[in-house]
C-alpha cells in the first residue's frame, strides 16, 4: 500500500517529473483552504477545550473538599452539610451494584461473542438478527432500561417470586439491589459483546487450525486455546462495562437506589445509596448550594476519578489487542 505523503512520491529521475513536482509543491496560497483548515482545526480545539475546562474545573474545585475523612465516613446527620457528611455508603453501594452486574453480564456477553465469531454461519439470517439486536440494545435510552426494570424485573419477576415463595409478602417485588444490577447488566451487554468479539477476531486463525489438526475438538479449542488468548479483550469489555455502569443514574432511579439509608445493603433485596445519584441529589436538592458546593465537587471528583481510572486501564489493554490485530493483517 502506498503510504508516502503526496508531493513526494514522484521519483525525480527525469527533468520532466522534476518540474512537475516543483509545480505541484509551489501551489498558490489559497485563502479558502487556509480559512477552512483553520476553522475545522478550531472545532477540534474547542472540543478538547471543553474537555479540559470540565476536568480542570472539577479537579481544581474538588481537590480542596476531598479528605480521607470524607471518603471513609458515613453521613451522620445532614448530608448536605460538609461537617457531618461522608460518602462511604455511596461508594460501597456503587461498588456492590457494579460487581453484581459484572457477574451477570460477563458470562452471557462472552458466550454470545463466542457464538458470533466461532459458531455463527456468517451472514445467515439469525446472525444478522443477533447483530441487529446487539446494536439496538446499545442504543436504547437508559431511562427506558429503568422502565424495563420496573415492568419486567420488579413487577413481573419480583411480584411473581413473592407470590410463589413468600406468600405474597413484598420481599422481591420492590426496588432492590438485584433488580438494579440486572437492569444494568442488560444495558451493558453490548459493550462486553463488542469488546470480546474484537479480541476473538484478533487471534490468529492458524492457532485454531493447529489445535483442530492435533485432534482437539472445537469446544476444547475454544476453551483451551481461544479463550485464554482472548482474555485481555474480555477484561477490556468488562472494565468498559463497569465504567459505563458506574456513572449511570437514570436506570437506577426506580429500580433500587435510595435517597438515604442508615446502613449499607446486606441482602440482594435491599436498596442502596449510589455515588452518581448522590451527585444528582446534592446538586438539585440542597437547601443551601453555597454550603454544599465543596462536598458536591468532591463527590463529582471521586465519581469521575473512578470512571476515568477504569476507562484508562481498558484503553491501555485495548491498545495492546489492536496492535496485535494490526500486526496480523
Amino acid at each position: 500500500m502506498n503510504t508516502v505523503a503526496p508531493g513526494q512520491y514522484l521519483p525525480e529521475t527525469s527533468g520532466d517529473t522534476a518540474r512537475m513536482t516543483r509545480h505541484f509543491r509551489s501551489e498558490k496560497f489559497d485563502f479558502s483552504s487556509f480559512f477552512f483548515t483553520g476553522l475545522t482545526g478550531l472545532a477540534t480545539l474547542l472540543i478538547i477545550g471543553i474537555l479540559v475546562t470540565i476536568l480542570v474545573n472539577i479537579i481544581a474545585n474538588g481537590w480542596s473538599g476531598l479528605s480521607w475523612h470524607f471518603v471513609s465516613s458515613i453521613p451522620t446527620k445532614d448530608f448536605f452539610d460538609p461537617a457531618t457528611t461522608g460518602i462511604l455508603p455511596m461508594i460501597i453501594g456503587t461498588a456492590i451494584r457494579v460487581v453484581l452486574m459484572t457477574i451477570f453480564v460477563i458470562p452471557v456477553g462472552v458466550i454470545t461473542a463466542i457464538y458470533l465469531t466461532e459458531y455463527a454461519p456468517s451472514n445467515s439470517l439469525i446472525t444478522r438478527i443477533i447483530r441487529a439486536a446487539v446494536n439496538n440494545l446499545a442504543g436504547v435510552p437508559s431511562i427506558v432500561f429503568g422502565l424495563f426494570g420496573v415492568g419486567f424485573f420488579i413487577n413481573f419477576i419480583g411480584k411473581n417470586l413473592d407470590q410463589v415463595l413468600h406468600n405474597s409478602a413484598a420481599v422481591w417485588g420492590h426496588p432492590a439491589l438485584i433488580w438494579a444490577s440486572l437492569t444494568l447488566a442488560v444495558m451493558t451487554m453490548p459493550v462486553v459483546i463488542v469488546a470480546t468479539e474484537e479480541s476473538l477476531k484478533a487471534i490468529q486463525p492458524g492457532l485454531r487450525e493447529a489445535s483442530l489438526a492435533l485432534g482437539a475438538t472445537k469446544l476444547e479449542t475454544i476453551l483451551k486455546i481461544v479463550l485464554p488468548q482472548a482474555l485481555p479483550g474480555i477484561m477490556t469489555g468488562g472494565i468498559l462495562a463497569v465504567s459505563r455502569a458506574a456513572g449511570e443514574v437514570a436506570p437506577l432511579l426506580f429500580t433500587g437506589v435510595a435517597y438515604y439509608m442508615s446502613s449499607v445493603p446486606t441482602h440482594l433485596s435491599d436498596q442502596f445509596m449510589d455515588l452518581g445519584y448522590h451527585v444528582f441529589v446534592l446538586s438539585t436538592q440542597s437547601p443551601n448550594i453555597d454550603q454544599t458546593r465543596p462536598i458536591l465537587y468532591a463527590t463529582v471528583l471521586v465519581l469521575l476519578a473512578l470512571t476515568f481510572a477504569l476507562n484508562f486501564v481498558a484503553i491501555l489493554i485495548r491498545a495492546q489487542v489492536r496492535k496485535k490485530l494490526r500486526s496480523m493483517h
Partner: protein
Amino acid sequence: MGIHRGHKARPVEWLAEKFIFLVSLSTIAMVLLIFLFVAREALPVFFGETNTALIQPVIPTAEMDKHSPAELQQYLELTPEQFKAMDKDTLSMLMDVKVEALNDIPDNFRKDPDAKINTSEWKYLVQPHQWSGYSKPEFIWQPVGEIKKFNIIPLFVGTLKVTLIGLLFAVPLAVGAAIYVSQLARPRMREIVKPAIEMLSGIPSVVAGFFALIVMASVLQKLFGYQTRLNAFVAGIALGFAVIPVIFSIAEDALTSVPRAYTQAALALGASRWQTAWQIVLPAALPGVFAATVLGFGRAIGETMIVLMVCSASVMSWSIFDSARSITTTIAAEMGEVVTGGAHYRILFMLGSLLFAATFLSNMAGELVIQRFKQKLEGKK
C-alpha cells in the same frame, strides 16, 4: 471456521454448541422483552381503558344487585381474583367508600365541566383543550392536582427543542473535527484527539448535568443576557457534550474509510488538501456522516440526567431561552411518585414506549445507512 464433524459422535460438543447458541439468543430476547414489558404497562392507555375523570358515575349501594358481577368488578377496579375473594358485605362496603369519595370532592370542582372529562383519552393527550379558567384551548401537561392534565405535546416540543439545540451545537463541531483529524491534520494530532474524545464520552451524564447546572448556566447567562437562568439552551449545549463523541467517532470512521485512491487522485490533479477533503472525501463519506447525525439524534432524545438537572418546568414554548421538559425528564421525575397501575403510571410507560420506538427506528436507519455505505465502498454493490 474449523471442521464440522457429525454431532452424534460427540454429544458434549453438540450440547455445548446448542447451549452457546441459546445463550446468544438472549440478546434478541432482551430487545423483545424490553419492548413487550414497557408496552404491556402502557397498553390500557393505547386502548383507552384508563379513566381519570374526577367525577365518575356512581352506583348507589342499594342498587348493587341490579348489576352483573363483571360490571361491579370493573366499577370497583378489582382484579377477578380479588373480586372472587370478597363476600357481599365487603363489596357493599367498598361501594359505600366510592359514594363517600364522591361526596368528598370540593364543591367548586363539582360544577366544573372538566371534572367529568377522562383526561387520559387520546383526544386530551394530543389535542389542545380549553380548560375552565383558560381563555383559549391550550396544551398542558400537569399531572398533579384535582383535574390532571396529560397533554403530551409540550413534552414533545421540549424534547425536540433540547435535542435540536444539542445537534446544532454538536454536529458542526464533531463533523468539523472529524474532517480535520482524518484529512487535514498530521497523524500525531489524531493520537491526541482520539483519547480526548474517548475521555469526553467517558464523562457520566450526571457529571455533565452537574457541570451545566453549577458552572455553565451562570457563564452562559452572563454571555447572552437572557432571563431564565436554567433553560433549554443550557441543557442543549450540555447535551451536545454527550453527543459530540458519538457523532465524531462514526463520522471520522466514515471519512477514513474513503479509499486512499480518491484522495491521491484529487491531490495529483492539483487540488489542495481542503479542496480534496470538502469536494471529494466528504461527498463520498456523506452517508456515513448522515448516519452519525441520526445516531447522535437517537442518543440525544434518550439522554435523561442532563436535561433533568438543568431544566424541568413544562411550558409550551418554542423559545430556546425558556425552560423545557423532555420526555425522559418527565419519566425520571414523576415515575417515583405515581401509583403503580394508575393512569399516570401507564401514561409514563406509554411515553417510554414511544421513546423506545423512536430510538429503535433511528438506530436501525443509522445502521442500515452505514452498512450500505461500507458495501458500496468495498465495491460489493
